[in-house]
């Protein structure tokens, strides 16, 4: 049998195997390298050890993971609750947009990580300071992408809706909001994928729970395998959120706009 004939029999396309192949390749080199060089576990544990720790220590890790997840979800919720109204307000009122734009940009120029210790001072060791960190990070991409989505609406549709005598809220509901959804979702996807960073940094600075706290504690005890196990769980959470947003987007947006 020829190679092409064999390939066509495979249930998956070649492009679908590239990413897993690269991942397996890197993990294989890592595993083999650590074993051959006989690196101590506390310097760099091999992937098989990390996975084993992530599974066997799951009971220890879970409460921390749930705390971090709760912080991220609250951060996302807070970001949506503030970004959506603000984007709509700025869209409805270009003067307001002009006035607020410099502050929005400035808020991104401030290194949020430098604020983390202060946030702990102000908001305490509990979840509030971490939720706030996640909120600051998600808020910006969601606001900006939603605003630019609203503004991208075809002016000829605006003329049509004006002639129909539609009010601003009718135009928003029937025209601008659906029009902006694809950009809103791409902003949200960026937001949720960086939200984990905010929560973890907050936990590093001062916390009693969470994956960031677990990482700091394990690092101090040279439990490098546990640090990696926490990173693995964090990555899985971030990935799950990314996929979840993608699924919601696919369910919501069933149309294509000819731009």
């Amino acid at each position, binding site marked *: 049998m020829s190679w092409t004939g064999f390939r066509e029999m495979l249930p998956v396309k070649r492009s679908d195997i590239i990413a897993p192949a690269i991942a397996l390749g890197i993990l294989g080199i890592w595993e083999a390298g650590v074993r051959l060089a006989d690196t101590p576990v506390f310097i760099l544990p091999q992937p098989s050890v990390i996975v084993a720790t992530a599974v066997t220590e799951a009971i220890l890790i879970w409460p921390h993971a749930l705390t971090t997840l709760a912080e991220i979800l609250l951060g996302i919720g807070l970001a949506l609750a503030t970004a959506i109204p603000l984007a709509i307000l700025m869209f409805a009122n270009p003067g307001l947009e002009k006035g607020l734009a410099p502050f929005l940009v400035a808020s991104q120029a401030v290194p949020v990580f430098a604020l983390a210790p202060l946030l702990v001072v102000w908001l305490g060791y509990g979840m509030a300071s971490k939720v706030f960190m996640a909120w600051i990070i998600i808020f910006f991409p969601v606001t900006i992408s939603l605003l630019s989505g609203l503004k991208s609406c075809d002016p*000829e*549709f605006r*003329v*049509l*809706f*004006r*002639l*129909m*005598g*539609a*009010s601003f809220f*009718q135009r928003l509901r*029937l*025209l601008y909001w*659906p029009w902006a959804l694809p950009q809103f979702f791409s902003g949200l996807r960026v937001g949720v994928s960086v939200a984990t960073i905010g929560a973890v940094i907050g936990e590093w600075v001062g916390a009693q729970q969470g994956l960031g706290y677990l990482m700091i504690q394990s690092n101090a005890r040279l439990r490098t395998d546990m640090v990696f196990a926490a990173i693995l769980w964090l990555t899985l959470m971030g990935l799950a959120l990314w996929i979840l947003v993608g699924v919601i987007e696919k369910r919501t947006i*069933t*149309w*294509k*706009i*000819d731009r």
Partner: protein
Amino acid sequence: MLKLNGAEKSFNHQTIFSAFDLAVAPGRFTVLVGPSGCGKSTLFDGLTGVTNLDRGTISWQGRQMDSLRGHAAYMQQKDLLLPWFTLMENSLLPARTGSGAGKSGTSRPEEAAARLFARLGLSGYENHYPGQVSGGMRQRCALVRTLMFNRDLILLDEPLSALDAITRRGLQALLLMLQSEFGKTILMITHDIEEALLLGDEICLLSPMPMTVVERFAPEQPKPRDFNHPELIAVKRHVLDRLQGDAACETI
């Protein structure tokens, strides 16, 4: 009666039109024909309120107004159907935004739209999305939506120029129906003389910028017209001769 008196508009010191007068009698189909870029779209922008006229007055049914917003239905080259709504939902937009079918009184908008779907040959496609049907069907749906505005005046901005010749023929007949069956007053702009001669009660030939009405025709032939009628052929030849004599116009 739609009246436009002394309308003037200029952009960057370029006069698009000035002292432009127009009168459209109720129930009449008036067509403005002119070369591309002569300023007829700017005139429509002034009528629909997209831009403000520098000078001049617009009046409809004896009332003077800044623009025809809220008084005229509008249809243009693009069907402007929203891809997230079905054809039926799209046609109901004027009713949903509270400007149209509220005034129809006797019938519910859904029933009115369903009747129009049947009349325009769209029955069975009510729940299709715009992306699932042909360009001709989308434009017919746009026509239903235009009627659902429930306004006596309809502004048509080259409504058929994006369609192929055969689809176009069918839709020209439907445009005539707007007038004959629904008694609408229609103002249309086009660059297609043949279309103007087939549809118009009065045809105003426009000059390139600054735009003026250079000549008016009122073909006596009853509609639907046969384009091979000697009167129409003569008019068309006359118009083309006139436009070819005009160096400034490149396409018609």
